[in-house]
């Protein structure tokens, strides 16, 4: 077992542990903090995949922005959800069974697939090609439509969210 494999197992264990606590913690604020750890560990997984750009962006976006948005939302809605009452639906055993079933199904499906044990080939020494990514994003035959639509989608989200979240005028 190589050092890289040990590192991956460690990171993966941290991620899954943090994720499990995120979905089971009684305190919603603790759930948010564990979510941050899980997302940060996913960034480390990206780094083991040599996708450095997305590892850095994962930290900047998820830890630096989305997690903070979630924490602010938790603080704004603090009064409604005291941490004393039940945090789980009454149907949570069914949810557990379904997720376990989905996991088993996925693993069976994956192990019957041929490319399961593929080993990776070495990347060129310059690392992943960010310039190629940028070129593909604005290429007419590439992804220019998703590129512009993504920007429109975000602005639409911004407009909608400002409209919905700002204080009602009468107050």
């Amino acid at each position, binding site marked *: 077992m190589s050092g890289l494999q040990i590192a991956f197992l460690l990171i993966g264990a941290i991620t899954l542990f943090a994720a499990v606590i995120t979905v089971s913690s009684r305190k919603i*604020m603790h759930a948010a*903090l564990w979510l*941050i750890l899980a997302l940060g560990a996913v*960034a480390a997984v990206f780094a083991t995949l040599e996708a*450095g*750009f997305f*590892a*850095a*962006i*994962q*930290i*900047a976006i998820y*830890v*630096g*922005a989305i*997690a*903070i948005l979630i*924490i*602010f939302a938790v*603080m704004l809605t603090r009064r409604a959800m005291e941490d004393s009452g039940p945090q789980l639906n009454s149907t949570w055993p069914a949810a557990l069974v379904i997720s376990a079933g989905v996991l088993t199904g996925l693993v069976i499906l994956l192990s019957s697939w041929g490319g399961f044990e593929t080993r990776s080939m070495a990347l060129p020494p*310059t*690392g*992943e090609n*960010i*310039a190629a990514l940028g070129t593909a994003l604005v290429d007419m035959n590439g992804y220019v439509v998703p590129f512009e639509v993504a920007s429109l989608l975000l602005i639409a989200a911004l407009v909608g969210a400002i409209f919905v979240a700002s204080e009602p005028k009468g107050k």
Partner: protein
Amino acid sequence: MTLWYEDPIKLIANWLFGLMLGWGMPVDTANFVLTLLGAAFLGVVPLLFCIFLIWYERKLLGRIQDRFGPNRVGPWGIFQPFADMLKIFIKEFITPQGADVVPYNLAPILSVASVLLIWAVVPFSMTMMGVNLNVGLSFIIGCGGLGLLAIILAGYGSNNKYALLGGMRAVAQLISYEVPMVMSLLVPVMLSGSLGVNDIVQKQTVPYIILAPVAALIFFITSVAESGRAPFDLVEAESEIVAGFNTEYSGLKFGFFFVAEFLHAFTISLLFSTLFLGGWRGPFTDQVPLLGFVYLVVKTFIVYFLVILFRGSLPRFRIDQMMDLNWKLLTPLSLVTLLITALLANPLSGMPLLQAVALFLVNLAALVVLMSWAERKMPRKRKIVAKTRPLATPNQQDQLSA
């Protein structure tokens, strides 16, 4: 054969590597030990250097305010920070009631780590750097995210209204100023065609402060705001929110927040001189690469002096003014600069001289136009809430008795 003036660090590393191989260590292990040693070295140096920075800044601030600054312990008070350090080291830790212990204790550690991490990607000379990451700039932005996290943890963990309020305010400030900062960082990326910090330095035949003066200005202002010091120190506005997110901290935990702040101030000067002033570039760096380190230090200290001058001479913003400055001036300005550079840089890339002159002039023009527009559009509204009354009028009796 590496000569001493090329890269002393590499020389030592090679020597150690040979030594370890001589002890019969496998090559992989020796490499890993070297990585470990190098990282530890790069981590310890800034922290020790910070002791000097604290003295330097206090002395300079004293001079700006017509005081002496520290002057008792040692010549020019140079041992003052050591005395302070000794004192803060043996102070008691007081953990407030109801604190969430893990976030509470993690926060100061993370706030130092988030600044230290930036040092990993800064090139100190042509070859002296922690790591030449190909996505260095996004990595630096990610480090800023970790700093935010530290503030949130501190505010939430210490179970104090003022800490929480200060923390949230700090986060609101930092995230707001991150927007124009990222936009202004896009300009050097566009001009150099790379996200790696060392690549950006290598492409800077002309320092980017000439090609992108407005982006440099925005980066300077926003990164001072990111480090949370005056005039953007609403984070610790004593008169409004006791002391901000670090209200409940004591001893060394409190000290580390300040170590992080001082180190951050120096780190932004380092980044500014790397990204916009040409970093280690200068005459004769090809023959004597070690000179690059000297150039970088000189440039950094010039910028650092400016940062301190900034702190010493400007009053604190009010929070709504600060938000207005960011969202209504800096953000549109950074977007406009981005547009201008995108339109001009590529068609003129064949003629470097023309490109430099055109970009410089157009940038300045954009700055002037936008500033005057802002001046007209946003007159300094003053809401009058009460009649002004003279505060310290000497009344008649005092005058008589005097």
